[in-house]
């Protein structure tokens, strides 16, 4: 546990010591803010539906950008070897790095609370539904991020890590939008795999154990594979 905390602190600080985090955050907030503000008075509804609609799409590009360097960079620069000399388990390295990036996503979502505050001042917003929506956004980000950490752990090249993460995330994103072309027998399996299906389930205002199991499975399996990939690399 202490080891995870050490890794977490080190990674989290390094995000904010480089300009990358600021650029990613600002760009993300400009895009989400643009979509949110241009639709707010058009829809005239006191909810954050536009936000919950656009962020899943933005995640596909932004989350891999956050996660790509986590393991791959250290591997390339060789500093990972330094880590290996400490009595730290591979899974602790992965979890620590994952939590650091998750912290960044949490901060990102905290900034978007500005939207929630303005909507609640302009109309009678459903607080419970909004909370649930944010939980859905957090879980979805956490899921994509786990995929990103896995992608980063299998390569030394950040660009490859980015593209692999993007491809896998996009697969989970698109899978329920192509159901029409899928044999009906497979449709429900594909739907279950789709991240948006579970996201919507929670975002509408219902915390469903099925969705929670889905997200935790996605995170667990991805991180497990990531730490496995790291172990193998150490063996080489």
């Amino acid at each position, binding site marked *: 546990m202490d080891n995870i905390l050490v890794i977490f602190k080190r990674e989290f600080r390094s995000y904010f010591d480089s300009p990358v985090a600021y650029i990613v955050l600002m760009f993300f907030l400009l895009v989400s803010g643009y979509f949110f*503000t241009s639709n*707010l008075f058009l829809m*005239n509804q006191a909810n954050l539906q536009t936000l919950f609609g656009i962020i899943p799409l933005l995640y596909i590009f932004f989350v891999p950008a956050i996660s790509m360097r986590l393991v791959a960079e250290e591997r390339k620069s060789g500093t990972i070897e330094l880590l290996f000399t400490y009595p730290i388990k591979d899974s602790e390295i992965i979890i620590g790095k994952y939590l650091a990036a998750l912290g960044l996503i949490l901060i990102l979502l905290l900034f978007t609370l500005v939207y929630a505050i303005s909507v609640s001042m*302009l109309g009678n917003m*459903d607080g419970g539904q909004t909370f649930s929506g944010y939980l859905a956004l957090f879980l979805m980000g956490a899921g994509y991020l786990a995929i990103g950490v896995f992608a980063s752990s299998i390569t030394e090249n950040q660009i490859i890590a980015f593209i692999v993460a993007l491809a896998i995330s996009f697969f989970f994103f698109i899978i329920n939008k192509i159901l*029409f072309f899928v044999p009906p027998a497979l449709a*429900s399996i594909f739907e279950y795999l789709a991240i948006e299906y579970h996201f919507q389930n929670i975002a509408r205002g*219902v915390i469903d154990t099925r969705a929670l*199991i889905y997200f935790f499975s996605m995170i667990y399996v991805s991180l*497990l594979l990531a730490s496995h990939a790291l172990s193998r690399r150490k063996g080489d």
Partner: protein
Amino acid sequence: MKRKTWSVSSISSLAVVIAIVVVINLIGTRVFTRADLTEKKIYTLSPASRHTVANLSDRLTVKAYFTKNLPPPYNANSEYINDVLRDYKAYSHGKFVYEFVDPANEAKLEEEAQRYRIQPAQVNVMEKDNLQVKKVYMGLVLIYGDKHETIPIIQDVDGFEYDMTSTIKRLVSDHIPKVGFLGGFGTPDLGQDMRNLTTALSKHYDVTPVSTEAGNSMIDNNIDVLCIVQPKEALDDWTKFCIDQYVMHGGKVGWFINKVKADPQTSQASGMNLGIDDMTRGYGFAVGNNLVTDAHAAAITVQQPQGNVMMITQVYYPAFPNITDISKQHPMVKDLQQLTLFFPSSVDTVRPVGAQVQYAPLFSSSDKTRLQVGRYDINPMAQMKREDYVGPKKLLGVAMTGTFQSFFSGKPVPHPKDSTAALPSVSIVTQSPNTRMVVIGDGNFVQGQYAQGGGPNQILFLNAVDWLSQDQDLMSIRSREAAIRPLKPDISDTTKQTVKYANLFVPPALVLMLGLFRWTAKRNRRKGVTL
């Protein structure tokens, strides 16, 4: 050597772990629980539904005929329906059972579905690279004792809970609501002019004529809904008194009133005085003495002599407006896309003094309306002058809830129409309990050729009767479903602009400030080191 064994064992252990995760997910789809965080608990079975199934005295069986592997978007529907039925079951103390069956490959089940009047629907399916039309079932039947009710097709799950609970209530109750139709005064004949409609109504209601002609008895208050459909002669004081006191005792009235009598054959039209305006104004509405015509109209066929031949042509007939401006909120009409009315009159709301009445507009004519007052031109061959049809739109239907004031408060009881009858000894009730009215500026649409079976006009009428007869319980389900939360109405343009720019630029600016803060802190620290 050592490394290899380690690797193999780690891969197999990885596979085992992933298999366990898959199994947990599979179990999770069957064993699960939900917490509804929405303010109005819109995704939880409403208290009305829970109460209804908890009080079942006998076993209620639901048999859902659903084709397996429905194409999207219907596949999600069967899952949703399964969830809802499961909730019903959970609250029923074992009295509510349900099963899903697929009639696709079993002739027996298919026959059974047909017997319950569950008809297959046609949907497009992608199969073997071809777009194919597939026959699918998505309906269900509720069986209770020797009675059953069918929900033949569920294409849209909005309102599913409402349909379920209202159907269950109907099945278990011994009380069949009564719908009365005021007779006389030139109102249409139930058995002839309104035969289509009364047949449809009698599936769920006891349809009964109401007369005020003989004796001194008033309208029986065990009639749940009173429909007043298109009288053509003025109502006498006694009849008005009967209607008024029926309302004051909590009766629900559907007014289907035209103020212009029109004969499409001769193109003659004249205004009618029904003598009800004073009374209805007291309730909060008046049917205008006018004819609402609309450039957005239905087409009719007219015969026209041209030399020796009769020419048959199609013309748009403004006196038959096509109504598309329909409320998306009100349960009575929200599912309707278009209606056609025939020689309608406008419905004007007049807020009554000292009464608590809430109005829900149902539908209006388009903004290409032309209001005809006094002189009525209904000749279909008259050239439609676009410049006459410039609006404004007119309200043609409204639903009202609240407490209504008696028109007869402070007035003497009028003498019965039947001159031989004695004045009844009644005391006038001056205010109604919370009750309902529906006003529609047309009574033609429910009659004869105008009320095509199953068409939107018929649905409108049946929905109106449903809405009037419903208990508050059921309405609570509907209103929950229409959870629309608009922003405050009076937001100024400056506020809008401020909010827009604040939301667009404040969060990135905060990030920038955070960055600058970190950067300067770091630089100062470094300076500290070099010094």
